[in-house]
């Protein structure tokens, strides 16, 4: 199985990864060979087998909904590339009409 270039481009966009031309070609080769390897599991009949998402018998973990101190805002925003009025600042995503 060999991935098409369209699939590589589509997946890179879904993952929000800006890849160079060379990276896309290499990715196509390497992902194809890894997918071929992992296809080994297709030979197993798993029709009647339930999936395992995680292995411990925990379900929902609840706590009282009470107000507790959070991390100080200035500490949290100290790492922000751009911030204003206690908010992370990004480019506009909506057009102004």
């Amino acid at each position, binding site marked *: 199985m060999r991935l098409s270039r369209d699939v590589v481009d*589509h997946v890179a966009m879904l993952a929000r*990864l800006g890849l160079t031309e060379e990276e896309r070609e290499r*990715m196509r080769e390497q992902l194809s060979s890894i997918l071929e*390897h992992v296809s080994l599991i297709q030979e197993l009949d798993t029709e009647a087998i339930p999936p395992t998402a995680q292995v411990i018998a925990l379900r929902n973990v609840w706590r009282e909904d009470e107000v507790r101190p959070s991390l100080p805002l200035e500490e949290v925003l100290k790492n922000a590339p751009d911030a204003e009025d206690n908010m992370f600042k990004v*480019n506009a*995503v909506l057009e102004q009409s």
Partner: protein
Amino acid sequence: MSEDLTRLTVTEARARLDRREISAVELLEAHLERIRQVEPQIHAFITLTEEVARVQAEEADRRIARSDAAPLTGIPVALKDVLCTVDAPTTAGSRILEGFRSPYDATVVRKLREQGAVFVGKANTDEFAMGSSTENSAYGPTRNPWDLDRVPGGSSGGSAAAVAAGEAMVSLGSDTGGSIRQPAGFCGVVGIKPTYGRVSRYGLVAFASSLDQIGPFGRTVEDVAIVLEAIAGHDPCDSTSVDTPVPDYRAALTGDIRGLRVGVAAEYQVPGMDPEVERVVDEAIAELQRLGAEIVPVSLPHTKYALATYYIIAPSEASANLARYDGVKYGLSLQGETLLESYLQTRGRGFGPEVKRRIMLGTYALSAGYYDAYYVKAQKVRTLIKRDFDQAFERVDVIAAPTSPTVAFRFGERTADPIQMYLSDVFTIPANMAGLPGIAVPCGFAHGLPVSLQFMGRAFDEATLLRVADAYEQATAWHRAVPPLVAALAARAPSGEAE
């Protein structure tokens, strides 16, 4: 300075600190001196935290003077650089986190800090813990103290090498598919991956959340037991940490394994296995028998599917976890014309090749049209792998296996073909898939390099793993072997001032 304080175990150091024969400051200085000597070749650390460590060591001495010492007060520790710390950068081995300062400590870091441990630095790792050699670190690879031309294993290669070379007495790493056990094996030290849920992951940079677990490295099983006891336990900040009692792990080290049933699975003999490694591991299993253990053949028929299952599940979870690196909240941020452009540039430039490969693989496996065939299918096979272990553990107490199919490999030997690199974790991945604990202990040498024996155990039964590993260690001398690099230092400074 006639004695090498960096060869002390935690137990030995504790006794001498508490008797005031040595100070925490002296113990730290001996390790800092070792770091100055070997770090230019080994490169076990991304960040050294000498200043932080000096303050902690002085505080430890004050605490010891008050007779208020905890088991790790004054003990020099290295922390894998995927563990968040308030007083040093946390990079996860990635350019995308360059300059990041965590506003909080990981729970395991907080616990060690409260015990008065001394943090010498943040240890090197493959980027986002994805790799088996540290060659994927954006800050350059770590070299194996046993042979500088070879990898230390990975992803926790820095944590393993630091302990092997005496740059830290013990260390913490993380293990998603073998990232504690495999480097412990390659560097000739002890490493344990606890049961999934045993140790809080709060403040661990997430890779694959259904598999990741934090655990310690040390030069003896007892040292690892002491650190595990310090970091284990339920944490309200990690709802996947389980509220089950933490036993006294040192009390479990009885040295007695008479009647213990040790399973050996034929499925752990694979093509590509180094015959010398196989011979050494077989000899180790024979030693267990001499110590009174009963060797029982078991079958784990789905073992050969574990690697494939892992390389669907782990990248899928990683692709979701790594969506947070968007250049908005922290880390590298490259500005494009639009928000989308900023994402593409930041992530395209910030992540290295292996991380991109896994994000692509995971995104593909989770995308419309492939989800059932890959992700759900892999989760079902995971059930089969877990059932294999459930059945085996009805008949045996632990399972013994090689930690890795080979000894440490050379730099560049496996970087061209990702699958060759992935195969180095073929014996460690199954325990992660089933959430079970696994420990790696030195069991001899092949081609002059350390070989490692792995024990896997029942969920939350680390005590039995530690018991069998310790009994084996007590009966053998492998853990006392010193890497040539370190032995040469001792030979060079026989007495008087060390250079």
